[in-house]
């Protein structure tokens, strides 16, 4: 029995959204059910995805399930930081594939403005190994900056090439009404922006945001009843790497992405060249360049050249993050993977409007938790 994505929903990503977490989730849930011949009580389980250090609510799954009217069906929280909602999708896939449930909702959310910036700063430091690395004052941008520095040294990648990732992001952000930052930026603006963690500057980094996403998965029989345009999940890969920087064997790429990609390609029986459109986890510009390489869109070390040659724009070899990516949309941790999946599903359904890639049949989502700590790759086909 095949497993389909039948519904995708997302709130606009923003700061100080004026909603509580339950209301954010409701908006994404409602959006995902639009146009489906489905009553919410047919949803047999819900998986709620968030990074709980940003939540005031303890055990938010129960609260969200209640507000969405999904009691008495089972619900629980799935967490792998920034890749939480693609982890949720993997679990939902397994539920359906096993026959345990016929239809599952995966609701991802984060309201990062709920806590003060001082509280955010405090939590940031604890994202690394708290025994051996956090005591030196590290945080996320520093983590990716170390990869950027190593990548530049090993392959000759330049700050201009990093900036070009954001230039692309800015261009497509203008076409995404749900992105937080909808503004084109120039190469000069990027290069002259203040340094966050060298060599990464402000426009190399994504921003915290509030938002929610929802993905509805169903088995083949149900899917065909409730929609005319199911999108099939044909490949799923997941992997982990060391939490510590000291444990990493590769500082110029993410091992977990390579491994998850291999698994997903194998399961989908496709090659990287068969992907028509991709969403990759561009929490930082360097992360997108590494993703090109780690997913096989180009050879290791040629990611800089790929963006330089505009091959990841629409019309290029492989359009990537043509919804603006995290760099423009913002990054509400638990909602991000669902938002990426939504973009790819809309592409495969031919509903992507001005950013539609003509004839897109195969799409890929690469969603990473932490600094290459958790890697999820999902391949979809219309």
């Amino acid at each position, binding site marked *: 029995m095949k497993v389909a994505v039948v519904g995708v929903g997302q709130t606009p990503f923003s700061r100080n959204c004026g909603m509580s977490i339950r209301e954010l989730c409701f908006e994404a849930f409602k959006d995902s059910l639009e146009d489906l011949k489905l009553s919410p009580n047919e949803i047999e389980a819900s998986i709620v995805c968030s990074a709980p250090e940003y939540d005031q609510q303890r055990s938010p799954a129960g609260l969200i399930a209640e507000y969405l009217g999904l009691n008495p069906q089972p619900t629980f929280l799935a967490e792998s930081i920034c890749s939480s909602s693609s982890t949720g999708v993997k679990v939902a896939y397994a539920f359906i594939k096993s026959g345990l449930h016929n239809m599952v909702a995966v609701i991802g959310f984060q309201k990062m403005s709920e806590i003060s910036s001082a509280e955010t700063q405090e939590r940031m430091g604890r994202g690394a190994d708290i025994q051996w690395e956090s005591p030196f*004052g590290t945080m996320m941008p520093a983590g990716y900056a170390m990869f950027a520095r190593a990548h530049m040294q090993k392959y000759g990648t330049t700050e201009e090439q990093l900036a070009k990732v954001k230039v692309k992001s800015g261009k497509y952000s203008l076409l995404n009404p749900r992105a937080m930052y909808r503004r084109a930026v120039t190469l000069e603006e990027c290069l002259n922006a203040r340094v966050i963690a060298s060599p990464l500057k402000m426009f190399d980094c994504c921003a915290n945001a509030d938002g929610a996403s929802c993905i509805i998965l169903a088995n083949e029989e149900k899917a065909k009843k409730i929609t005319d345009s199911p999108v099939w999940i044909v490949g799923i890969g997941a992997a982990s790497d060391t939490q510590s920087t000291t444990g990493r064997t590769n500082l110029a790429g993410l091992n977990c992405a390579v491994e998850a990609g291999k698994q997903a390609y194998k399961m989908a029986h496709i090659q990287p060249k068969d992907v028509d459109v991709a969403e990759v986890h561009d929490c930082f510009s360097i992360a997108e360049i590494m993703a090109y390489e780690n997913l096989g869109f180009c050879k290791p070390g040629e990611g800089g050249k790929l963006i330089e040659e505009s091959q990841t724009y629409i019309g290029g070899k492989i359009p990537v993050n043509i919804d603006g990516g995290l760099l423009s949309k913002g990054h509400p941790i638990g909602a991000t993977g669902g938002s990426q999946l939504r973009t790819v599903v809309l592409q495969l359904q031919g509903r992507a409007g001005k950013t539609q890639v003509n004839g897109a049949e195969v799409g890929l989502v690469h969603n990473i938790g932490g600094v290459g700590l958790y890697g999820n790759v999902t391949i979809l086909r219309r």
Partner: protein
Amino acid sequence: MSFDKFGKIGYISEAKVADFVKHLEEGKIMATRCRRCGQLYFPPRADCPRDLSTDMTWEKLSGRCKLITYTTAHFAPTGFQEDLPYTLALARCEEGVNVYAGLNKNLNESEVHIGMDLKLAPLQLPNGRITYEFRKA
């Protein structure tokens, strides 16, 4: 065993490897070695996942290492703001283990390059706290 003196900000109160801090106060940076399989660990581990052994021995690192990668942070988590900007580095010790630490303040970012030789050394902090850092070799 108390581990809470380690680092500018500590997040861990107890650890089986807390003797690391005692050794550090004596000027030694210690790794652990599994007596059963011979694997060397830094940061030190009390437990070896290769053979599930807890029979470990302390072993002093020479401190000689080479820079793998680095970044100079201009934003910091709570408790580290007053030190900005500071440089964080990952280096490979001659014993074959990696170390993550800050770079000595007197080293200018323009002097820093991947592959350079560094010396790992203990660093006494205010309020009786202690850590280690990389210095120019």
